[in-house]
Each structure stands twice: as C-alpha cells, then as structure tokens.
C-alpha cells in the first residue's frame, strides 16, 4: 500500500458497489483504487459488479425483476387441476360477470370475506415491497381461477410495530374516471411493520391497480404501490 493511503477492510463486501456508486470518501476511494491496481482480483470484482448493476437495470426496465420481488407460492399441481375443472364446470363468468362489484372488496381479516356465509379460502400470501427502481409495477399477482381471499401484506416505509394504517385499492383506469375505491382503515402493523389484509378475488379484474397506504399517526405522505393483477397462467 503506498504511504499516506489508509488501509481498507478488504473483506468489506460493499466496497466495489460503493466505489462504482461514488459513495466512498476521498480517502477510501484512493485506498480502494490503489488496491484495484495492485490486485487483479479487486479489479475483476469491480468489473463483475458493474455488469451486475447494468444487468439489474436492464431486467428492471424489461419488467422482469418485479415478479422476483413478490412473495407467493405456486399452487400445488393438483389444486391447479382442480381449479381448471372448477372453471370448466361453473364457468368463470358466473362469478366474474356482469354483477362484478365496481370496487374491490377488501377486509382486514379472512373471516370477513365470505361467499354465501362460507368463508373464502385464503390464497398464498403475497408480500408487497415497493420496487423504486422499476418505476412501473411493484407486484404482479395472478388472479386465481376459483374465488379466493387474496392474502396480501405490505411493508410501508412508515410501518412500525403497532402503527395504524388505512389502505385503499383502486383500479387505475377507474381512478382516472373518478370511480370510488375500496378503503379499510385502522389496520395495525405487525411486529415487523407489515400491514396485512385480504381481497376477494372475485371483485378484481385483470389490470393495473393502485394501492394507497396512509399512516394514521404521522404526517408522512401516503405511499402508493402499483399492482398488476393478471389472468392466471395456464401452467398446471
């Protein structure tokens, strides 16, 4: 190491990315560049990091990153087949037809979503985290073939254990027309800061929705998440 240049903890895994992001101090940068010249492995890591960053940016722009950042388990194959049979037998139009409510039906608990007195079955849990770099869609969620309570949890920036929030869900094209959205309030965040709620899948249509989360106890601006609900893929 040249005299006058401070040593760096080279096992710090953040260095290469911080160097490329111009987040190192002047001294750290000098030390890191000296290492980069002296050790080919350091240069190779910088190059690999640069490629990774560009690859991530491209993936984000192509909309291929957002689906990887949403939790959700694929339904076991036998359930998928059962769902397909249900569609054949009943016809999807019976429950997603002309009597589809104008606004989604959301509820703070599973027990509050029922079909003829029978609680709806819950879907896998979907976690919403805002993908700020993507800018377009924060989550893609396939609509199930059969009627379910979609179980969502969202992590607002202001979410802390016990914080209170209201959540509104609006279909984007209808929001532009001034259509009402569905809102529930007084949701309490869990210990990790997540806010959970359920949506009746029969009240959703494929398309883009906006989820707005407000925090009751702070002056922070409402946070919005964009969710693309899509028709379920046909894979078994």
């Amino acid at each position, binding site marked *: 190491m040249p005299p006058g240049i401070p040593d760096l903890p080279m096992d710090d895994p*953040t260095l290469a990315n911080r160097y490329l992001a*111009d987040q190192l101090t002047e001294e750290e940068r000098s030390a890191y560049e000296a290492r980069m010249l002296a050790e080919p492995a350091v240069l*190779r890591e910088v190059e690999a990091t640069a490629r*990774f960053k560009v690859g991530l940016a*491209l993936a984000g722009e192509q909309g291929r990153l957002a689906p990887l950042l949403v939790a959700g388990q694929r339904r076991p194959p036998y359930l998928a087949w059962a769902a397909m049979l249900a569609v054949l037998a009943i016809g999807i139009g019976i429950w997603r037809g002309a009597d589809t409510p104008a606004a989604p039906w959301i509820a703070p608990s599973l027990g509050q979503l029922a079909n003829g007195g029978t609680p709806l079955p819950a879907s896998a849990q979907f976690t919403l985290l805002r993908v700020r770099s993507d800018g377009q869609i924060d989550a893609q969620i396939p609509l199930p073939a059969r009627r379910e309570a979609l179980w969502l949890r969202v992590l607002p920036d202001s979410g802390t254990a016990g914080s209170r929030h209201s959540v509104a869900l609006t279909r984007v094209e209808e929001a532009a027309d001034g259509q009402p959205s569905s809102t529930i309030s007084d949701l309490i965040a869990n210990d990790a800061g997540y806010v959970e709620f359920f949506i009746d899948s029969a009240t959703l249509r494929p398309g883009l929705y906006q989820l707005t989360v407000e925090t009751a106890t702070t002056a922070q601006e409402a946070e919005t998440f964009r969710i693309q609900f899509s028709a379920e893929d046909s894979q078994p």
Partner: protein
Amino acid sequence: MPNQVVQSVSSSGPYAGGLHDPAGGAASRPSDQSELHRLMASEYPGLQMLLVRRLRDPELAGDLLNEAVCVAWEKNRAGQIANPQQIAGYVYQVALNLLRNHRRSVGDRADRRADSRTLDDLTGAPEPETIDPGLVQKVLRIVRDLQPLRDRVLIVRFYLDEDDSETLCAELGMTSAQFTKVLHRARRRLRELLESQGIRGGDLFSVLLCVG
C-alpha cells in the same frame, strides 16, 4: 488491426481529443491504443455499459472511455505504470474520475439540475454493442436463487437503488452480520457470472508486452 471501437467514437465530443496528439498530429501509436481500447471493450464491458447508463449517451460514453484509454496509455508510455498488467485498472480509475467530473459539471449548471439518481432512472438509452445478450438472464438467475425474498430485495436495493447498508438493515429488519452474509453469497455468484462470461486477465498483459 481492427479498429471498430475507435471508428465509432465521435471526433467532436468533449472527450474526443484523447486519440490525437496534443500537438495536432496523428496519435503516435494509434494501433496500440486501439488494441487497448478493443481489449477494454471485450474484457471489461461492464465499465463501458455502466458509462453508457450513467451518461445516457453512448457517444459521450465512448468519448469518455477513449479519453481514459489515452490517459492510461500515456502513463504507461511515460513509465508511470510499474506493471503493465495494471493498465486496465488505470483505465477504470480514469474513466470513473472523468465520469465524476462530468456529473459535477452537469450538476453545477443551473439549467440542468437533475441529480445523479434522476439521471440513472431515465430509461431508453441505447446499449453499447458489446452488451452480452445473456446478461439479463444470468443476473435474474442470481437474484432468483437468493432465498428468502428479503435477500432478493436487499440485493436489488443495494446494487440497483444504491441504498446504504444502514438503511437496508433498518428497513428489512436485518443485522449487519446478516447483511454481510447475504452480500458475500451474492458476490460468490457474481464471480461465477464473470467467469462464465470469460475474463482473461493475461490478455492485456500479453498485448502490452508485444507492443510496449
């Protein structure tokens, strides 16, 4: 000797002077510099791609890289680079310094107040020809293999959004030890990614020995 990269570079941009002799004559060893430039483009495409994305202007990025190659080459010729193997590191260093200076000068202009994040977030810039068409697939595979979801979010926000570790640990409920562990795992996959794309560290050295 093929000179594709140099031919594509504008001679009118702010960094265009790098290929020319300061006295106005032809560059003293254009083929040597061209070879260095070609090797930088083929062995270190990450630098070029990053410059294009940061500048949102492939021509300007090409000029800047040319300037960096020229400066590094002159250093080498003047005997200021002890080990010719270090020249790629010098090119990297000079290129990022030029980029930093460029962004500062843009930021200082009252009519162009976009911050660096905004510049990065702009989309639609064409990519350099050197981009590996399989890069996105490989990157997605790395992200997909990370479990649980929180680790994937961490990697994306750290490398793409460039959020700092303190913020990420606080927001994702992680300790710094957990953060470091996830990053180490991702870095191991990154090294594999680079090796799968091929990087022959000796190439630059061999060329410099031949022409130096």
